[in-house]
């Protein structure tokens, strides 16, 4: 492993992604990617008594699913990196409390999934680990309750607002000599261009995505054409358009092979999700369900995955703070 350029780590042992799993909720079941997920749950409570318990169940069941698919016992997992949006990462903590796997709880807002993959692949690259598990979850109802309004409140969502994805995605990293491999990681810097509208996360996070994107290209010497697909976390429709615009200004034309998980997961017109999906589970489920399958089928051979997060909470928002963004990138190749 060596550091190249300003921020990028090049991994020599190239951990491979052994398997993935994604479980989603009812709204995602109606979306265009429904057939790619391992399981779609019809009831957003999933038989539990609260949204928070349901979210913990999502992450727990997703981890069980990925371990089952990879045929690995939980005792063979060295470490797990997990996170979510709820205060003190309680969904991950409660979802994993019975797992008996050494646990790192992460918070990077909606960028947590790739943050986990970055750290997990460094652990793998050290040569000391055999299996690393990375997982994140989010739940529309628990997120609304914590960050916005009660579900029954008769308010209108603004056109730039995004819909938190209900679900969980999990990835297991191993030493196999089968792709896809994680080859480079580019952890991002916190970027804040002063957006204060909590209903416009896409605009708040796009500059962070731009910073990480440009740094990744500069550090690796690659161009957008090198990748079959560049996929961002959850910028949504508006954030996607903004990123294409501002990347062009910096001399990178990404319009051809670029898309966003928040755009992919919902049908904007049919499902009335305004600017698209968001949440820790957005990129986690789209990658684990959809993109990973495209990679194993060789439809995507080189993928740049950039997860974006809005580093805010309801207290700072009420205190009039702006919303800093962050973005982490990993390069995954067959």
């Amino acid at each position, binding site marked *: 492993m060596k550091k190249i350029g300003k921020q990028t780590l090049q991994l020599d042992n190239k951990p491979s992604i052994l398997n993935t799993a994604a479980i989603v909720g009812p709204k995602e079941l109606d979306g265009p990617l429904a057939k790619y997920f391992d399981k779609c749950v019809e009831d957003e409570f999933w038989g539990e008594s609260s949204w928070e318990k349901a979210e913990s169940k999502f992450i727990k069941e997703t981890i069980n699913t990925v371990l089952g698919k990879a045929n690995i016992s939980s005792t063979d997992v060295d470490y797990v990196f997990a996170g979510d949006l709820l205060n003190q990462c309680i969904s991950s903590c409660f979802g994993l409390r019975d797992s008996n796997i050494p646990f790192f709880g992460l918070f990077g807002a909606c960028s947590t999934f790739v943050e986990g993959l970055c750290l997990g692949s460094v652990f793998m690259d050290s040569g000391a680990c055999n299996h690393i598990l990375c997982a994140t979850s989010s739940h529309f109802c628990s997120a609304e309750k914590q960050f916005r309004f009660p579900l029954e*409140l008769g308010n209108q969502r603004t056109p730039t607002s995004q819909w938190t994805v209900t679900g969980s995605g999990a990835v297991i990293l191993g030493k196999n000599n089968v792709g896809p491999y994680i080859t480079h990681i580019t952890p991002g810097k916190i970027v804040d261009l002063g957006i204060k509208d909590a209903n416009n996360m896409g605009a708040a996070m796009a500059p962070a995505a731009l910073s990480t994107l440009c740094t990744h290209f500069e550090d690796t010497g690659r161009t957008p054409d090198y990748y079959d697909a560049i996929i961002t976390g959850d910028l949504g429709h508006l954030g996607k358009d903004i990123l294409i615009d501002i990347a062009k200004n910096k001399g990178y034309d990404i319009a051809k092979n670029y898309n966003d998980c928040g755009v992919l997961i919902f049908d904007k017109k049919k499902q009335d999700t305004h600017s698209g999906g968001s949440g820790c589970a957005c990129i986690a489920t789209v990658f684990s369900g959809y993109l990973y399958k495209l990679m194993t089928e060789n439809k995507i051979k080189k993928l740049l995955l950039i997860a974006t997060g809005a580093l805010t909470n309801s207290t700072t928002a009420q205190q009039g703070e702006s919303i800093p963004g962050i973005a982490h990138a990993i390069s995954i190749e067959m």
Partner: protein
Amino acid sequence: MNPTDTSKEYGEYVKKKAPNSPILKDCFNAFWVGGLICSIGQLIFFYCKFKGLDQTASSTVVSICLILISVILTSLNIFNKIGKFAGAGSLIPITGFANSIVSPSIEYKSEGYVMGVGAKMFTVAGPVLVYGISASVIIGIIACLFI
């Protein structure tokens, strides 16, 4: 010009780029739903007067009836759909005030009946009472001093 150079330029760029709310459609829906809710109130008012109640009592009955309707619709998960359609049309009438009390009380039931339902009930409506009651006290004091 590069919009990501300064936060001022970026803010302006985002403002231009962001889609606007469909304000004409929103206003039309708010108008007729709001008007309709008030008209339902007026019908109840006429009925109370017909039954021989005075002006003040009739107004109170109207409020209680509309609040009850709003509470029932909120409990049946219908009010949020009306609210999404009508926006201020269902928010501004007393129905919106009732909805703002009921919705957190249902939502925070999982945190128990005292600190969940009892405390969170006023997350939206609390400020309304604080400012409404304070304004009335100030007006009363001013009236007392100067009139």
